[in-house]
C-alpha cells in the first residue's frame, strides 16, 4: 500500500467574528498561503480536492459550492465535499490516493459560525424524530454528560478547571488562538456557572475561520522536495444517535478507532484532541489511555478556538507541524462530530 504524507498545513486565526467576509473570502487567504508553502499555483496542481463544511453554520444554502470559487477550478478539477469536519475530507482523500486515482490532494475546511446561534443550530444534527424537534442545544447535552461524570465521581469540577487552565496557558504559544492567558484553575472555579455544571470557560468559544492541508504519496512529496510527516494510520467509528443507549462517560468509538489506526504500535509523544468541552478532554484521554508521557493539546486545543468543520483537520495539522519541526517523532490527532463525542476519527502521524 502506498505511504501517504502530509506536506503542508495552514490555518487562519480563530476569531469570534470574521465580519463581512463570505466563505470564499475566508478561504482564499488560507489557500494562497498553502499553495505558496507547497510551491504550487492552485488546485490544478494537485490530483484531488476535498472540503468539509456545513451550510447550516452561516445559514447560506450551497455555501460549500461558493467555496469552490477559491480553487481555480477551470479547467475542471476532481473535487468532492463532506458535510462534516474536514478531517473526514482528509479520510476521503486518503482513500482516493490509495485507490490510485490521485497522487496528491488538497483538503480544506471552513466555518463561519458567528452569524447563527451555534448551540441551537447544532441541535438540528440530532435525530429528526425525537431530539431535533425538542431543540436540545449542544451545550445542554454536554452539561448532561458532565453531570453524569460528576455524579459518578469520575471527575471533579477542579479536574475540569485544570483542563481549561492548561488550554489557556498552552494557547499562549499559539498565534492563531482566540482565547489564551495565564489562567489558574482557581480563576476558572471562581467563574459563575453558565449552564450547570459548565462554566463559560468549560465551553469552546464560537469561532470563524478556515484551515487547509496538502497530502501526497511519499514519492510525490520527495519530488516536491518538501519536509513531510507520514500518516501511518487513520480510522473512524460512530456510536448510535440514541443518546440514551450510549455510555456518555466513556468514548468507545474513539478507543476503537485508535486501535484500528495503530496508535499502540509506538509511543504517543503528542496528542491533539478535539474536545469542545473541558470534561470531554478527560473522557478522550482516558479512552485512549494517555498518560504523563503524552503532551496533550499543546496548541490549547479547541477550548482556545473552535473552527467548526476545520478544527478536526487543524488537530492533524498541529501534530504535523510538531513532527516536521523536529519537536516530536510520533503523535496522534483526534477529530469529533455529533453530540457528546458521537463520531470520532483518530490519525496516527510519524516522522518520515
Amino acid at each position, binding site marked *: 500500500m502506498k505511504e501517504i504524507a502530509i506536506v503542508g498545513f495552514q490555518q487562519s486565526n480563530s476569531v469570534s467574528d470574521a*465580519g*463581512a*467576509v*463570505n*466563505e*470564499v*473570502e475566508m478561504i*482564499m487567504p488560507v*489557500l*494562497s498561503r498553502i499553495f505558496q508553502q507547497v510551491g504550487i499555483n*492552485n*488546485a490544478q496542481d494537485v490530483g484531488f480536492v476535498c472540503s468539509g463544511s456545513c451550510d*447550516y453554520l*452561516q*445559514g*447560506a444554502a450551497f455555501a460549500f459550492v*461558493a467555496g*469552490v*470559487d*477559491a*480553487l*481555480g*477550478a*477551470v479547467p475542471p478539477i476532481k473535487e468532492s465535499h463532506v458535510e462534516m469536519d474536514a478531517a473526514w475530507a482528509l479520510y476521503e482523500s486518503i482513500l482516493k490516493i490509495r485507490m490510485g486515482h490521485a497522487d496528491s490532494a488538497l483538503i480544506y475546511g471552513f466555518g463561519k459560525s*458567528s*452569524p*447563527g*446561534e451555534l448551540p*441551537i*443550530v447544532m441541535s*438540528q444534527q440530532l435525530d*429528526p*424524530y425525537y431530539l*431535533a*424537534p425538542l431543540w436540545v442545544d449542544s451545550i445542554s447535552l454536554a452539561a448532561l454528560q458532565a453531570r453524569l461524570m460528576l455524579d459518578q465521581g469520575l471527575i471533579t469540577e477542579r479536574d475540569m478547571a485544570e483542563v481549561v487552565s492548561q488550554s489557556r496557558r498552552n494557547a499562549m504559544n499559539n498565534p492563531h488562538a482566540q482565547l489564551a492567558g495565564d489562567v489558574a484553575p482557581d480563576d476558572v472555579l471562581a467563574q459563575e456557572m453558565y449552564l450547570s455544571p459548565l462554566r463559560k470557560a468549560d465551553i469552546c468559544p464560537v469561532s470563524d475561520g478556515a484551515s487547509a492541508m496538502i497530502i501526497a504519496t511519499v514519492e510525490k512529496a520527495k519530488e516536491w522536495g518538501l519536509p513531510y510527516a507520514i500518516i501511518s494510520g487513520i480510522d473512524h467509528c460512530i456510536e448510535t444517535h440514541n443518546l440514551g443507549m450510549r455510555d456518555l462517560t466513556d468514548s468507545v468509538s474513539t478507543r476503537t478507532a485508535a486501535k484500528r489506526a495503530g496508535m499502540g504500535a509506538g509511543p504517543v509523544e503528542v496528542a491533539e484532541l478535539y474536545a469542545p468541552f473541558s470534561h470531554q478532554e478527560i473522557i478522550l484521554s482516558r479512552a485512549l489511555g494517555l498518560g504523563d508521557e503524552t503532551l496533550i493539546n499543546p496548541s490549547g486545543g479547541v477550548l482556545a478556538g473552535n473552527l467548526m468543520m476545520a478544527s478536526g483537520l487543524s488537530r492533524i495539522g498541529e501534530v504535523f507541524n510538531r513532527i516536521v519541526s523536529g519537536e516530536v517523532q510520533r503523535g496522534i490527532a483526534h477529530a469529533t462530530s455529533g453530540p457528546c463525542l458521537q463520531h470520532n476519527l483518530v490519525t496516527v502521524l510519524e516522522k518520515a
Partner: protein
Amino acid sequence: MSEEQEVVTVVKAPVYLKYNFTAGAAPARFLAQIKKGVLTGQRCPKCSAVYVPPRGSCGGCGVATEEEVVLSNKATVQSFTIVYIPIPNNPIQPPYIIANVVPDGANVSFIHLMSECVNEDVHIGARVEAVWKPKEEWGFAMDNIRYYRPIDEPNVPVDQIGKLSVNGQEG
C-alpha cells in the same frame, strides 16, 4: 393490554433559525454602488474577466477580484424563458420573461425580468437596457433595476455575447 392507538405517520417539526447574514466584502461593495444607482462589476487580475454581481473571487482562477469597473445600462440577452405559471404571492402576472442578461463591460450574465416587450419577439442576442426605479426607492438590492426592455440596436452574434466592452457595439 393497552387500548389500540392510532398509528403516527407524520411528525411536524418546523425549523426556525436566525442568522445575521453578511453578503461578503466584495458583494457589499457592489451593493453600496447599486444603492447609488451604479451597476458595477469586478475584474479578475489574472484572466481579466469581469464578474457581476461579484462574489469575491474569479471562480476560474481562484483569486480575489479587487478592481471595480462601472458597467453600462445596456445589455445583451444571453438566454431567456417565458414563464406561464403564476408564483404565489408574486405580483408579476404571467406570461412574463426571465432573461439572463450580460451588461456591456461584463463577461457573465445575471438573471433579471424583461418588460415593455412582445414576449414572442424576444431572442438570444437581443439588445436591452435597464429601467431603474425612481431614485427615492433605491436600496441595497438588484431590484433597483425594475426590468430590462428592448432597444433598437442590431443583434449581437452568439459568439460575441458577453464580450462587448462598456461602450457596447461601438466597441
